[in-house]
């Protein structure tokens, strides 16, 4: 009804101008409400667990060394190296394999000259990320409507 009314109004009708701020405010309120829901419900973990200090330290190193410019987590980040979301739980790779790369670099990846402790902190961070979920969506999660249903 509201939309029908708006469409039928002539452009210079003052009522149309009254509806513009009302619609804006309505959408803004909806945005605030939705954002609050996203903040609360975007954490899938129901039990509150304290994040270990080494994970935070690893997260800071990840940011300070710009790891995201070359690597992805959940498909977000750079394209030069592999996605590292589930590297820690990968049976063919795992933490020992990752440690060698982080500590010495490769011909593509520079050596960041991290200390032993810092390397362990980066790995602790990546293990923590790994536990949060899987980066690839399984075919079973694709719903007939085109969306995903991820548990």
């Amino acid at each position, binding site marked *: 009804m509201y939309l029908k009314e708006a469409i039928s109004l002539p452009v210079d009708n003052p009522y149309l101008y009254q509806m513009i701020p009302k619609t804006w405010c309505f*959408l803004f309120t909806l945005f605030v409400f939705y954002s609050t829901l996203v903040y609360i419900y975007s954490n899938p973990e129901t039990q509150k667990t304290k994040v270990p200090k080494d994970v935070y330290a690893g997260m800071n190193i990840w940011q300070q060394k710009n790891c995201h410019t070359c690597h992805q987590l959940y498909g977000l980040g750079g394209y030069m190296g592999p996605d590292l979301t589930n590297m820690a739980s990968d049976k063919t790779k795992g933490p020992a394999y990752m440690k060698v790369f982080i500590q010495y670099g490769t011909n593509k990846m520079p050596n960041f000259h991290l200390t032993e402790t810092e390397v362990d902190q980066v790995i602790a961070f990546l293990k923590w990320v790994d536990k949060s979920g899987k980066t690839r969506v399984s075919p079973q999660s*694709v719903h007939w409507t085109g969306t995903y249903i991820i548990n």
Partner: protein
Amino acid sequence: MSTLNRIFIKFALLLLFVALLIGVISSVAFLYPESFNNWLPFHMLRPMHTSAALFWIICGASGCICYFKNQQYPDDGLVKKLTTIFIVTWIAVIIAAFVNYAMGNFGGREYWEFPPYLNLPLLIGWLAITFLILRGFRKDTPAYEWMWMTGVVFFLITFTEQNLWQLSWFRESYIREVTVQWKANGSMVGAWNQMINGLSVYVLIRISGNEALGTSKKTYFLFFLGLFNLMFNWGHHVYNLPNANWMRGVAYAVSMTEWVILIIIIRGFRKKLDESRKLKHYLSYRFIMAAEFWLFANLFLALLMSIPALNRYTHGTHITVAHAMGTTIGINTMMLLAIIGYIFKANELSERLKKVIAFCIRFNNYSLAVFWLSLIIAGLIKGYIMVNQPDMDFNSLMKPVLPFIEAFAGAGFFVFLSLGIIVVIFLRIKVEKPNH
């Protein structure tokens, strides 16, 4: 036009030049990292490239808005003060950010990799432009002013939201933290699109003389559709995250409303052709026409990427880069060059220079087409292999992709050449009198 405002717009143009130049160097560093790792590694180049591109768009759009607002209030001291606070703060912080990049000091998030404390002065500067835009804002104002106001206000909101990771509550859950970060990033793109769309409507009115465009129902409808998508259509960035399923549902449903824009573009195609025949002598209009083509192409791509079942093949691939760069160069940059060209009176340049610019626009379109398609093909190959052969190691996966990255890098050089020439011409324009 005030000297400071002119400097700021030229500063934005310089940032575009820097983004293009470092973009070309970065693409070579991506292909041959071993030659760059010891002196200028890719992880240092990429933040310089992305931040320069990001700041070009934000400074370009906000600088033009400041110019038009100062035209509206030529004798208002407060408007001048707020403009000065904003411009001085942002120029100083951006220079500080690049100095930090050069020294290897990082610590921020993707696209904003400089040390996070620099976000505080950026926020203070943006508050100044927010007050400026709200000053004298009337409810019955034309649609373009609503777009400027919405863009500025939502940039403030999303910029703040982008920094929420600094609060420990958000960092306690990785999924929450990434969701909020990409919610902010997605909506922020919508915010600067609002600013740029408002500016392009304003310039179109000025060059066509069609005042009704600013108050037409179609303009208001597109404004609200854009606003609706800004608020709720950011979920495609995080479809694969194991967060609440309703978030994916909302983003998917809202993104599908953008088909309406695509239909409007197709329906208005014939009218646009007539309009382009009438207005093609305006240099700014040529930029706008290029932007319209890229809007159509990128919107179609975005709509496909917004379907989660297809996003499974495109997420984390070069198709995402094609979309990001296609919109940044093809739409945002073209629109901003149209607006800056109008402000700098590029139409009054010599016939020779105008011909050079028109040639560069065409040349850029062809180069960008190769650039964009190379990335899409690279992404399709990567996406197909990732889904069907998930156990393939990364180096083997990248082998069939690399020839297309080489084509992308080559085309990128020509994008730099064509847009670089336009930037240099614009930087050399001497702007003196206000453009009424």
